[in-house]
């Protein structure tokens, strides 16, 4: 075959060389076009040509309400740094990576001056300073620390504050009023949820309570358990999971999954239930108000139909958990402890600004910093529909929000149980048909007992 034939034969065909050339040109075009698009970004805070006396490094999550991070990074930190002559460096990472990061910093005995996590990391008590002096400093300005924050960060056995909580987040049930109206129900109690779930699922809108190894499933299922009278520990921090009530709760949730949920809940991450709601699929989730703020910001068609209520009541009552317990801690190996302590104290004293910046997502751990009546007033002024829907948050915060480990305190054993996702695992094993409810609870109790024994031996419980 001649070259001419070759050429003729290849006419209109795309050779590999052509493909490479065209794809390369396309990539360059997209890149160039992208760089030309308009922008309005101020960039991260930097004190250029600084002559500041101190430094402070902070690592914390990427807040679920972006407006909070904007305030924190660009207003609060900037003002505080200038007022205190300190170069503050804030790094945000995805919330799912905070535990890994903490483990690495402890292993390396080196890291940030302030480390924030979404749950109290009681297991690191020996690695952190006693935060009591900061608590007392704040109390002198705005009044006593809230009971929830104290139960979450204070170890009565060692008499040490192993963390300092600046805020917590109420955990309401978020539900689609239009979809529930269609089936003539509302999620006032878990019995109502169980009754409505099959109808909602049949209409293409299942319930969205996760049973996965992630924080939202953890929170939702521990709170659910409490509504049925099942508790991980008692008020004396002794394990009490293995009871008839716990078994009944697991059976109830298994039935709820089978009739009203989808298998995807076993593989969820912390954002999955939110995205399930945003996609228009979910009819109910347990989540903080980021689940309503995002649809409002994105102008999703059902945003006005998202209602928030307290957790449904169970046979034992209406017992909820915080959704997030924002806790900062200062490592013993931190290089700028004094700056960290001052920063934390000032942040907590400025609880009002922080709560407003979070669009009522954060509630101050020191209630005196922003008293409930004032928060209620701010919530009532929220313009989103249905008007006044956020006022219920203060009721939820005051009456139905408890610490992890309630009725006891949050301790190292609770931290380990929480971090290992033992409760979601206990539920999932039954829902997936791997174990009976009784066996799953018994096995989990066995693991939990060992965890308590370990921490008791170490003198932390």
């Amino acid at each position, binding site marked *: 075959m001649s070259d001419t034939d070759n050429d003729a034969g290849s006419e209109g065909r795309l050779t*590999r060389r052509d*493909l*490479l050339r065209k*794809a*390369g040109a*396309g*990539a360059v075009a*997209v*890149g160039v*076009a*992208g*760089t*030309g*698009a*308009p*922008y*309005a*970004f101020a960039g*991260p805070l930097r004190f250029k040509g600084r002559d500041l006396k101190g430094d402070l490094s902070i*690592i914390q*999550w*990427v*807040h*679920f*309400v*972006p407006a909070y*991070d904007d305030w924190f990074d660009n207003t609060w930190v900037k003002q505080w740094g200038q007022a205190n002559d300190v170069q503050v*460096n804030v*790094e*945000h*990472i*995805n*919330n799912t*990576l905070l535990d*890994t*990061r903490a*483990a*690495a*910093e402890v*292993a*390396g*005995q*080196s*890291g*940030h001056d302030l480390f924030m996590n979404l749950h109290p990391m009681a297991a690191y008590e020996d690695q952190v300073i006693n935060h009591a002096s900061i608590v007392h400093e704040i109390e002198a300005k705005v009044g006593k620390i809230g009971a929830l924050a104290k139960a979450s960060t204070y170890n009565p056995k060692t008499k040490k504050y192993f963390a300092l909580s600046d805020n917590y987040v109420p955990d309401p049930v978020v539900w689609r009023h239009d979809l529930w109206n269609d089936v003539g129900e509302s999620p006032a109690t878990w019995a109502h949820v169980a009754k409505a779930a099959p109808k909602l699922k049949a209409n293409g809108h299942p319930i969205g309570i996760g049973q996965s190894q992630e924080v939202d499933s953890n929170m939702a299922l521990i709170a659910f358990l409490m509504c049925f009278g099942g508790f991980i520990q008692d008020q004396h921090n002794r394990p009490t999971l293995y009871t008839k009530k716990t078994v009944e709760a697991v059976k109830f949730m298994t039935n709820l999954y089978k009739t009203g949920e989808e298998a995807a809940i076993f593989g969820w991450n*912390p*954002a999955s239930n*939110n*995205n399930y709601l*945003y*996609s*228009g*699929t979910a009819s109910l989730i347990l989540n903080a108000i*980021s*689940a309503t703020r*995002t649809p409002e910001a*994105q*102008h*999703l*068609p059902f945003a006005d139909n998202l209602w928030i209520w307290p957790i449904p009541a169970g046979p034992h009552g209406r017992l909820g958990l915080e959704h997030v317990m924002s806790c900062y801690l200062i490592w013993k190996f931190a290089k700028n402890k004094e700056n960290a302590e001052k920063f934390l104290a000032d942040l907590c004293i400025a609880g009002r600004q922080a709560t407003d910046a979070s669009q009522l997502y954060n509630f101050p751990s020191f209630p005196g910093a922003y008293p409930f009546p004032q928060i209620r007033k701010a919530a009532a002024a929220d313009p989103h529909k249905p008007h006044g829907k956020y006022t219920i948050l203060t009721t939820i915060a005051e009456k139905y929000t408890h610490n992890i480990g309630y009725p006891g305190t949050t301790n190292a054993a609770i931290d380990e149980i929480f971090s290992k996702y033992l409760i979601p695992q206990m539920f999932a094993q039954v829902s997936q048909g791997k174990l009976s409810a009784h066996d799953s609870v018994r096995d989990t109790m066995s693991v939990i007992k060992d965890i308590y024994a370990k921490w008791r031996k170490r003198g932390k419980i």
Partner: protein
Amino acid sequence: MTGARRHKAFSYAVTIPFVILLGFPFFWMAVTSFKPEAQVYDPTKVWTFQPTLANYGFLFHQTDYLRWLRNSCFVGLMVVLITLAVALPAGYALAPLSGRVGRTMGVGIFLTYLVPPTLLFLPLSRVISKLNLEDRLWALILVYPSFTIPFAVWLLMGFFKSVPQELEDAALMDGCSRFGALVRVVLPVSLPGILTVVIFTFSLVINEFVYAITFISSATNRTVTVGVPTDLIRGDLFNWPGIMAAILIPSIPLALVYNAFLNRFITGFTGGAFR
């Protein structure tokens, strides 16, 4: 239908479903990267497509994306160089060792590749801290060869075994030193294997996440794998178009390189298989 045509039709019937299956994610990624963010979240507009370059603008102007790319490339290139510098002589030295000792050493080296980073990051944190490399790209450059070198040695060992001993002997007979024989005779015929190591090492480094998130925290030192989930997932809000754009951009040159060296890449992987 002639035999040749039938064969061709059969080839297409087998290939086309694979092409669709493997190509669809890229197609979806490309389409989503040009969609407005609100459209992606609105369930009533799943099939609406109003292309925009805003997501690319966001990436380039409102994030440190170019810096992440530059960091990834820098770390990738350095690790490739270190890997080649260690794996080439190691593979060459191990290749002629036959019998139990040689096999055991080869397997031993490869086994270190199988230790997961999720276990290793804790002790390595200590090492990085002692060396004062926290939050520096050099931490990654130091750590990544721990998994790229074992694989590269194992791969090159197999490849060097497939090079006829007679070629090297002839070079030695002609007056070459051992090093000269390696450089002038063995390496040129081993080019597919070396290219495979380069591409594979670079891909491993570009994709690595656990060490990058553990040892790097500041926004300026992030690599693409850390920058994307950190800056493009705001809490529960995934910036899907931005994420898709951020992934699409490095995918294109990588796909082009794979495509350009496809035949050599296959030869590289199968080089030591038939001896």
